[in-house]
């Protein structure tokens, strides 16, 4: 079983601040995906990173895949209350997705 460790578990910040969520593993993944889940909804895919060292930007969100394809980070610039949610990383391998424990992000107005 591939284990993904996410940190921090909880993050509460003021609107306009920056934040970073980390996702680490001792296993190599074919790809790493980030999802955001809001209460009462299923996770929604934000981005997929496939190549080691890859950096993807989605408006104020920046995603990075480690060179060895074992870890990833999500950085949000100038966070807004709409960024509030549960952020999940997931690694693909062995014909299935393995999810991290999640980071609950709260952005206060």
């Amino acid at each position, binding site marked *: 079983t591939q284990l993904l460790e996410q940190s921090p578990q909880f993050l509460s910040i003021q609107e306009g601040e920056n934040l970073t969520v980390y996702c680490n593993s001792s296993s190599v993944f074919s790809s790493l995906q980030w999802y955001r889940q809001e209460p009462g909804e299923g996770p929604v895919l934000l981005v*997929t990173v496939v190549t080691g060292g890859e950096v993807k930007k989605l408006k104020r969100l920046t995603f990075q895949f480690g060179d060895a394809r074992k870890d990833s980070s999500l950085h949000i610039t100038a966070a807004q209350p709409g960024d509030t949610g549960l952020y999940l990383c997931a690694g693909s391998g062995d014909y*299935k997705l393995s999810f991290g424990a999640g980071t609950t992000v709260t952005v206060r107005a």
Partner: protein
Amino acid sequence: SAVISQKPSRDICQRGTSLTIQCQVDSQVTMMFWYRQQPGQSLTLIATANQGSEATYESGFVIDKFPISRPNLTFSTLTVSNMSPEDSSIYLCSVDLLGLNYGYTFGSGTRLTVV
């Protein structure tokens, strides 16, 4: 992207009873996945449902407790049998329209409370 309809969205059930959750996709997909998300926790894969064959269950999950049907390429059901309070969770179906390496689409989930 695919639209997944999952129902019921929530239910409160008596212990010892069973609940069947339905998942309908607006596209034909080879594999459908069932996950459990316990309160405040991440997603755990229960089983993978392939059309025309028996579902493949993950360690810790058995067919007698979580029977799955997959009658066609757009529909699947998960039954939670002989429920106990420990089965209280969110159950989610998902599909990999983009392919395993590119992302899953999830239904909105079924919030089950067993009393």
